[in-house]
């Protein structure tokens, strides 16, 4: 059947470098490039050498973090552990207004306070210098919390006292904090430099004829769905220490991507990157918020260090983080699906408004990612999707674990559940019926591997779905105030792509040890251990023989960000390729040594490596060589069970099962941790986390960890992870990404289980006691 597809996104060449980085990271440019040659579908890629899991000696096993002992004994050096004797400490005065112009700033009293070494305002920032388009110190603050003045003092207390001595007068400007309002033509401009509040070209994707699709449908379901503002809340707050040594600058920073920071700071200060060294030995979580993003605080420590000639340190408070760091953006969606009686999807129509906040470098793409699942997950001949990003005077939108997909898939999977009920179908069957198992419908790029069907079938089986679901008659059938229910959702994620830069060097020094030199960050997912396992497997050496460098831009090359679920797949591929090259060089060296010693022509392919020893296959009597001797020459499903207390509105998740097509398991221990951590972050998204603004003033009221409710260890349900190994065509040993997909399933799964338990459909996150009680009241 001939269908016409059209996807409008953006002009890649016109993007800023920060925007390009984001687009590259999430493979969004590939989508656009793919459209151009969509005429002839590419052949499905061949799978990686099919090796049964048992054939591997290191990968696929449970491996503790090789550096975990350093963390639990306090020996790991985080940025907060960097101190210098003459170091200065920074505090920042922030705007109390969402949009204003600074009329005057009087810093004279603060400057006179003993112990204060420097005070800066926007007047001290070099002309045109910004942090990736954000003001380093603002003269026109665009959100509450924009930095206005910075103090460097001999300790934090003095710096804090000095803030209260700075007098700032503002002229208040009109502001807008809700994207739905900001989108309207007569809305106040969020920043005076804007012509309207729209961020970039709206995303549009059409396929077939959607009105015909709805006309042909026997059932049409429609929802208005909204998801909330969140912050990543990595355990380690943002911080940096800057130190100038003549023309050389060193920055210690908590980061997922040191090379990006080195490049943007070097460009901004007119330095060659060779003179900017950025170090991040350990990072206490990032979730996308430390993905090399240009934050004002990085420029502040650098400028204050240059001004004072002393090392300068700024450790943001939690409230500072809420205000300065990026946010998982709110999305307002209308979504409509059409079905035939037999469950065949005939049409998908969706519109998504993404609240970009002020200055987001990613604003233009935020909406498109929320529509990814609607475009790709199911086979549907007729679609019409539109997404707009809208600038507002709120927290700067960015990439949080899976970016826009969690919001989009929540909306889609709520509606799939409702449709299943109206069609009297098992929700699992409805998904299986419509799964897209071929590839990207627009670019015609086939999946590099696809285990979604297998994940759904095996996951449902492991959860005993049929037995626990009991059919649609079981909805709200429990007695007593506490009702139990189960829910199901499916997800095909675009995350975990392969993309440049991917570089690594495997060095085998004269002692025969193995050193992996690469610039990727260690952010809590035991990334360095994963890469060591890949190298050990590829080189056939013991894991203990391998060490991996921390990211330090002075002696590692750029291997990209640890985000976008790419650490295992892309960086893993880089280290594997380097290891294979090193292996070949070792074998060639050994062959030439033996040719000389044994006085015959020994070829490299006659040699093999076992546990770090090179042996000569044709003759077992030849004593094996040590390395020293030789050198001397991605997809998902989730089911869950929960309890709804209909007297208090409290939802308690009891049992979660996530089944993921991960291509290949590298480290069984850390991949489980990813699913468990992702589940908890997903449950927080579903039930409790909410960054709320006071509408009248634009001031956030939950910018602290009391009012912004992260879940705790005692809220952890039983979490089961099931891994389907489809042996991906691209990733190292067939592996693909898991970090982001693990967050997405809980929200829709929980919403569907709440319906199963209590007969209420919640369409707004978080599903807290307020919303549960309101829905119960409305139903009664």
């Amino acid at each position, binding site marked *: 059947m001939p269908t016409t597809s059209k996807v409008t996104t953006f002009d890649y060449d016109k993007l800023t470098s920060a925007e390009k980085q984001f687009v590259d990271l999430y493979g969004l440019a590939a989508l656009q490039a793919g459209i151009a040659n969509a005429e002839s579908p590419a052949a499905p890629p061949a799978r990686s050498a099919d090796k049964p899991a048992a054939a591997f000696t290191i990968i696929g096993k449970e491996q503790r973090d090789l550096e975990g002992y350093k963390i639990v004994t306090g020996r790991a050096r985080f940025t907060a552990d960097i101190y210098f004797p003459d170091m200065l400490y920074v505090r920042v005065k922030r705007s109390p207004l969402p949009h204003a112009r600074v009329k005057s700033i009087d810093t004279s009293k603060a400057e006179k306070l003993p112990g204060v070494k420097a005070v800066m305002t926007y007047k001290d920032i070099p002309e045109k210098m910004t942090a990736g388009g954000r003001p380093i110190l603002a003269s026109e603050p665009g959100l*509450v919390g924009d930095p206005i003045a910075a103090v460097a003092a001999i300790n934090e207390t003095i710096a804090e006292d000095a803030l209260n001595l700075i007098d700032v007068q503002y002229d208040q400007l009109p502001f807008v904090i809700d994207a739905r309002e900001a989108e309207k033509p007569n809305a106040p401009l969020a920043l005076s430099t804007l012509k309207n509040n729209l961020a970039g070209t709206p995303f549009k994707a059409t396929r077939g004829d959607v009105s015909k699709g709805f006309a042909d449908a026997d059932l049409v379901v429609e929802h208005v769905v909204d998801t909330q503002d969140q912050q990543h809340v990595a355990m380690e707050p943002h911080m940096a220490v800057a130190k100038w040594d003549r023309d050389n600058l060193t920055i210690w920073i908590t980061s997922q991507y040191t090379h990006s920071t080195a490049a943007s700071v070097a460009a901004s200060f007119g330095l060659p990157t060779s003179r900017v060294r950025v170090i991040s030995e350990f990072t206490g979580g990032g979730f996308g918020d430390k993905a090399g993003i240009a934050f004002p605080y990085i420029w502040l420590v650098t400028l204050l260090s240059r001004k004072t000639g002393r090392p300068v340190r700024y450790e943001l408070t939690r409230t500072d983080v809420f205000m300065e760091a990026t946010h998982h953006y709110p999305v307002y969606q209308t979504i409509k699906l059409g079905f035939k009686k037999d469950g065949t999807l005939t049409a998908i129509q969706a519109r998504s408004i993404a609240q970009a906040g002020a200055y987001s470098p990613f604003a233009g793409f935020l909406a498109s990612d929320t529509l990814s699942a609607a475009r790709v997950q199911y086979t549907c001949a007729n679609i019409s999707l539109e997404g707009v990003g809208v600038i507002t005077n709120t927290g700067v939108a960015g990439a949080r674990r899976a970016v826009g997909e969690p919001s989009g898939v929540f909306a889609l999977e709520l509606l799939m559940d409702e449709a299943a009920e109206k069609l009297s179908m098992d929700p699992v069957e409805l998904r299986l019926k419509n799964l897209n198992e071929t590839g990207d419908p627009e670019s015609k790029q086939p999946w590099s591997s696809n285990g979604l069907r297998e994940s759904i079938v095996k996951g449902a089986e492991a959860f005993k779905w049929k037995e626990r679901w009991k059919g649609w008659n079981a909805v709200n059938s429990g007695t007593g105030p506490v009702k139990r229910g189960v829910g199901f959702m499916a997800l095909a994620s675009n995350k975990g792509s392969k993309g440049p830069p991917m570089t690594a060097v495997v060095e085998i020094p004269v002692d025969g040890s193995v050193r992996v030199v690469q610039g990727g960050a260690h952010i809590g997912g035991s990334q360095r251990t994963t890469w060591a396992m890949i190298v050990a497997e590829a080189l056939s050496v013991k894991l203990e023989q391998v060490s991996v460098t921390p990211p330090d831009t002075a002696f590692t090359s750029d291997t990209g960000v640890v985000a976008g679920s790419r650490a295992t797949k892309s960086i893993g591929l880089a280290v594997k390729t380097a290891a294979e090259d090193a292996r070949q060089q070792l074998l060639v060296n050994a062959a030439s040594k033996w040719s000389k010693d044994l006085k015959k022509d020994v070829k490299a392919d006659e040699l093999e490596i076992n546990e770090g020893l090179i042996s000569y296959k044709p003759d077992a009597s030849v004593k094996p060589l040590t390395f020293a001797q030789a050198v001397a020459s991605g997809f998902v499903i989730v089911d869950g069970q929960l309890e709804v207390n209909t007297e208090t509105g409290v939802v308690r998740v009891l049992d979660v099962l996530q089944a993921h097509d991960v291509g290949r398991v590298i480290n069984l221990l850390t991949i489980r941790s990813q699913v468990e951590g992702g589940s908890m972050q997903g449950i927080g998204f579903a039930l409790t986390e909410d960054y709320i603004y*006071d*509408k*009248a003033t634009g001031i956030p*009221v*939950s910018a602290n960890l009391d009012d912004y*409710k992260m879940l*705790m260890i005692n809220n952890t349900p039983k979490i089961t992870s099931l891994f389907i190994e489809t042996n991906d065509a691209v990733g190292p040993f067939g592996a693909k990404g898991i970090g982001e997909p693990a967050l997405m399933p809980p929200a829709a799964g929980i919403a569907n289980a709440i319906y199963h338990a209590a007969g209420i459909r919640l369409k707004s996150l978080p599903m807290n006691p307020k919303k549960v009680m309101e829905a119960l009241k409305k139903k009664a």
Partner: protein
Amino acid sequence: MRSFKYYAATSWEDAVAMLSKNAAAQVIAGGSDLLGWIKDDLNGPGAPRADLLIDIRTIPNTSYVKFDAAGGLKLGALTPLVTVAESADVLKNYPGLAKSALSPASPAIRNVGSIAGNLMQRPRCWYLRGKDFACYKKGGDFCFAVTGENQYHAILEGELCYIVHPSDTAPALIALNASAKVVGPGGAKDVALDKFFIGPRTNVLKETVLEHNELLAEISVPAPAANWKSAFIKVTQRDVYDFAVVSVAVAGQIEGGVWKDGRVVLGGVAPTPYRATAAEDALKGQKIDEKSARNAGDLTLVKARPMSQNAYKVDIAKNLIARAVLSLASA
């Protein structure tokens, strides 16, 4: 955190004298609330910026749990919540109090947080605790919650200011008819805990009857009469590190399944712990069953005046009263 001066008090008299001399002084016990207050840099007539902290942890013999069957229970002001919660005497004679002392925050906070501090902590209101909102307590003439984000605010007895009282132990102690020993310049006096808390219509700048130079030194609970039972239930979103959306403490004399006498007190719904006298009156002499328990809840919330976002708390409060009353019958 900004700078402040520190003084270690040696006796209650010493602390009272220091307070009398320093208008900008505040008392620190466990500090779990006060230090957050200082970090948030709040200031105003009802939220004075403390230049001097007077530490009362350094006063000897202020942490104790004493019980005898005739005289009842005495709790020293500085007794950590964990000690109250784990006391065998409290667990046996006042189970509702034990449970309420186990409810605040987390084990770490309950190890340092004192029983008096739990009663004296300032209200939870994100407008009060946001330094850029000039609300009544900070010298303004406006309550931002009325037209703003009020999902956690008061549904009962709000006037001018719609804060809610955050303490878990206060409702439990009031239900048990506890009293406070207050020390001040004129010596010591007893104040019934039921009269200890004051709402915004009495004084919008503070939440208790204490003057600036008065301190809460000891809490007394009468000995339990025959057939007295008590219970405490708290609704939160995440079990730990969470203040009550609604809490309820009940204590009653139950004979043959009939409510002879007792108290019902709500937390998290009003600027002070809310004594549900309507429920108490309705229950008197009634057999406890689903109907009388529901009726007690419904009658209490007749007076509720919810705002734009907090009507759901009315339903939770009704359900919670019923649940707590029923639990006494089956206890």
